[in-house]
């Protein structure tokens, strides 16, 4: 299914600049941006940029993948906790997948995530790269 480029474009603030919502009352940061603080119901917020380093909290290595992902497998997929406590999911790249582990320090880099695929356009975004690899 081809998706329109506007759908990809709308996510640029998150995927290109790691923009997140920081809510006034709770001081908590949520990624991607959202209109309401899930904890307090607060709608007053400012836009912040996430830090670009963190640690892997859990991961997998995807060996069998559908469609265009098949060409990339095996690839690491992880949830990392950034230095401000925010968590996000992304691929782990530029490393031997057998060496990925919990606690591994990563930085966020800007990469091509999908080519064509369901978006019909080149889609860029963030991936995790082991910090000292």
């Amino acid at each position, binding site marked *: *299914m081809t998706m329109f480029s506007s759908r990809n474009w709308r*996510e640029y603030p998150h995927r290109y600049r790691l923009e997140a919502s920081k809510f006034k009352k709770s001081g908590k940061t*949520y990624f*991607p941006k959202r209109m309401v603080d899930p904890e307090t119901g607060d709608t007053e917020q400012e836009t912040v940029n996430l830090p670009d380093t963190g640690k892997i*909290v*859990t*991961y*997998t*290595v*995807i*060996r*069998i*993948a*559908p*469609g265009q*992902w098949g060409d*990339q497998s095996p*690839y690491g*997929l*992880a*949830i990392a906790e950034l230095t401000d406590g925010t*968590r*996000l*999911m*992304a*691929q782990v790249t530029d490393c031997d997948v057998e060496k990925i582990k*919990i606690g591994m320090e990563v930085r966020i880099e800007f990469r091509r*995530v*999908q080519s064509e695929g*369901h978006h019909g356009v080149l*889609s860029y*975004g963030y*991936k995790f790269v082991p910090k000292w690899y």
Partner: protein
Amino acid sequence: MREVCIIGVGMSKWGEIWKQSLRDMHTDAALKAIKASGVDHLDSMYVGCMSCGLFVGQEHLASLLTDYMGMCGLPATRVESACASGGMAVRQAFIEVASGISDIVMASGVEKMTDCSGDEATYALATAADQEYEVFHGATFPGLYAIMACAHMAKYGTTRAMLSAVSSKNHTNGAMNPVAQYPFKVTPAQVEKSVMIADPLRILDCSPITDGAAAVVVTTVDIAKKLGKPYVKIIGSGIGTDTIALAQRDDITTIKAATIASKMALKMAGKKITDIQFSEVHDCFTIAEIVVAESIGLYEPGKAGPAFLAGESALDGKFPINSSGGLKSKGHPVGATGVAQMVEVYKQLTGQAENGRQIPNSPKIGMAQNMGGSGGSSVVHIMEVA
């Protein structure tokens, strides 16, 4: 609120069913349930289906299906909550009968998953995850549960052998289920030699892609008594939701939606989890059976895996789980799964489980836990013998 019960159940044969279309397999299950119940009409119908639009390019399902059942004009609607669609359809039927709006309601579920390629089916299933922040990055469903498994193993020391025990036990039960897709035994050694999909989950940790339908007739206890067929009471119904993106959860070693749903159902039933004698749980992956058993309060966090390894969840164990074979062996036509769980609990409580998979000592109270996506939704029902 009126007392509600299930009085007739039906299922189509599950598997890769080339000869039956989506509408045919639903009609097959629905007519079996109506015949078994003895009712002469329905007042309405709820059909659970996750993604007929993506699997077979067909939406507007409820009208199509009631027409092909020979009931054109029947009030009917489709219910969707990813892989929990079936359980949610049962809950809607329960609410409609309990409230007095209708007396006899069918809850059914159907999914036709093999009329498209494996890639297309994988894509359709992945719509239950966060498209922009999980699937965009290459997440698959085995991948999401693998990420939960990795966290659970690190936190509680859950082992490969515990996952294998779940798969093996469910295949042992499913081998006795005449509608199961894969009715054969699997040893832990076979699980551990099967191909790796997403570390640590192997193909024999994963539920399959399945065609299938299931249906139950829901009515009041007063009407059931007049019909004179075996019935079981639905004494509790609960539902919960959570974020669909795993990264946004505080703790991904537990499924909050299942905890909420289970507490709500137990409260309505006036029971404690220790009063429940057996359960069908949503084992879309082996790790899910472990995490859910802990999330609904059956075991303390980290204690379910060792208990399963010791055989506690076997048919003759302390607390039998997935006597039907579960999603692993019976199959997982996503929208039908939640309804089929009710079918199994009904059969166990009325002593009708086939081929030697009847739980010993005639259990009196059972539970069915159905779940959507990676735990973004869950629905729980508690049933008791009449």
